């Protein structure tokens, strides 16, 4: 019973990683860049929800929607002003810019909202679910997180595979040049990808802060890195890969915390990543790249 409870917590944390990892993997698939500022969009989204609920008294759901819209705009603005001018530049230049944007967001948050941690009030009001005569208790946050993540993942899969706009994204990620010659506006498609990724980041931020209620300017950094790990773990560029990688990473993290060591949990997570990459360099669901000889 204890194990089951840890497993469910792991799936819950993992689904949040998965949602964040989707942002990394979609942007990587389409723009071939690692958007290291993605984690900090989570933080901005969480602060906006916090301010909306605690300082302005907006109902949680409305605050979340406002935060999603704001993060969408933030994602588009970052892409437009920081990354778009570098299209075609070396990937190292783009990577360093992304790190720069990440620090910029963290320091702007520090400037606006101060360094003292805010205590985030959970947006979830559902009572915990008691199963098996109260031996297994699943918190409302866990339920909401798992349900929301599942809906988002199914929705995203449907959008990408079953709509023409989503198909255009797949086409651009496979062959940008050919897609362009078929009349697809590549700049629009890339901006849309950033928009969707950032909106998901806002949701992930709320779910994360509801479960771990400390909010400070560096809140997004660690989940960001872990979600990036999850994306690589699952095979970067692959959407199902990011989902699988995220959930597995969450489970490994929680189980290591429970059974091995709380301090070593993160080390174990990253060690597993190293082992996976040694055995399968392209990640769990990543494509095998056949080099032409």
């Amino acid at each position, binding site marked *: 019973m204890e194990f089951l409870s840890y497993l469910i917590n792991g799936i819950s944390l993992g689904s949040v990683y998965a949602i964040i990892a989707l942002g990394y993997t979609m942007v990587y698939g389409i723009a071939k860049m690692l958007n290291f500022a993605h984690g900090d969009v989570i933080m901005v989204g969480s602060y906006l929800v916090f301010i909306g609920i605690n300082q302005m008294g907006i109902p949680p759901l409305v605050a979340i929607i406002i935060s999603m819209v704001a993060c969408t705009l933030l994602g588009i603005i970052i892409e437009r002003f920081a990354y778009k001018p570098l299209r075609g530049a070396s990937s190292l230049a783009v990577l360093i810019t992304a790190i720069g944007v990440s620090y910029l967001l963290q320091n702007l948050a520090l400037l606006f909202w101060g360094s003292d941690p805010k205590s985030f009030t959970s947006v979830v009001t559902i009572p915990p679910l008691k199963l098996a005569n109260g031996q297994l208790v699943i918190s409302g946050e866990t339920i909401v997180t798992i349900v929301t993540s599942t809906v988002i993942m199914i929705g995203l899969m449907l959008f990408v595979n079953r709509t023409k706009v989503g198909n255009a994204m797949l086409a651009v990620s*496979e062959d940008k040049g*050919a897609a362009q010659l078929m009349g697809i506006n590549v700049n629009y498609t890339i901006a849309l990808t950033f928009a969707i990724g950032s909106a998901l980041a806002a949701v992930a931020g709320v779910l994360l802060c509801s479960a771990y209620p400390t909010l400070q300017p560096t809140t997004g950094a660690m989940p960001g890195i872990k979600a990036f790990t999850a994306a690589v773990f699952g095979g970067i560029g692959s959407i199902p890969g990011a989902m699988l990688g995220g959930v597995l990473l969450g489970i490994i993290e929680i189980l290591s915390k429970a059974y091995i060591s709380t301090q070593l949990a993160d080390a174990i997570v990253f060690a597993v990543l190293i082992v996976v990459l040694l055995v399968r360099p392209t990640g769990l669901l990543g494509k095998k790249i056949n080099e032409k000889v």
Partner: protein
Amino acid sequence: MALLEVMNVGIAFGGLQAVSQLDIKLEKGHLYGLIGPNGAGKTTVFNLLTGVYRPTEGDIILDEKNITGKSPAKINQAGIARTFQNIRLFGEMSVLDNVKIGLHNQIKYSAFTGIFRLPGFKEKEQEMDYKALKLLKIFDLDTVAQSPASSLPYGKQRKLEIARALATNPKLLLLDEPAAGMNPSESEELMNTIKFVQKEFDVAILLIEHDMNFVMGICEHIYVLEYGRIIAQGNGESIRNNPRVIAAYLGGD
């Protein structure tokens, strides 16, 4: 007024003048060939016409509109579609989805409609499926519509590229070596398909091809390119007997 008028177009890569003083005039609904020895600049001409390269001089006019320097996506929307010398299908997507990518600008709905499946979404997607399948049928590809494009045999991949290009509803279709790697019976079949497409879709076609029987067999007017310049043009017979063309291919002075 001609469908496509290329006037004095040239492009230089650094010090290398790849194409110069290019003049081409294509009429609506006709079949044209572009031939020349290896490295003459034929694919560069295609890249200039489709906006992959921006000409360093000259003008390209499509249907009385100047499209010089426009983006590849804009030029495609204006009415030029192409296939590639080395096949560039979206290999991991299904055959049907490849054609639907071509329909991207023919049937429109917003990303927002797609995400939230607003009214109209389903009809639009069904309309796309219907149109795409109709196109696939012409190329005998409707039975493999759900297979990944990369799983098709070579000849069918070439056909699918043509179907995908046609889906963008072009006025001018550029085919880069459509018969490359095909055996005689396959290229014979392709010839018939191209003739059929020209009539059925009322589209002008300009094709690059090394197979002379193929070019002479279907092209009404042929341009010969050597060192980035047009050295001859005319019908098959006049090209075959043109001493400059023979010299370009076989060497000589």
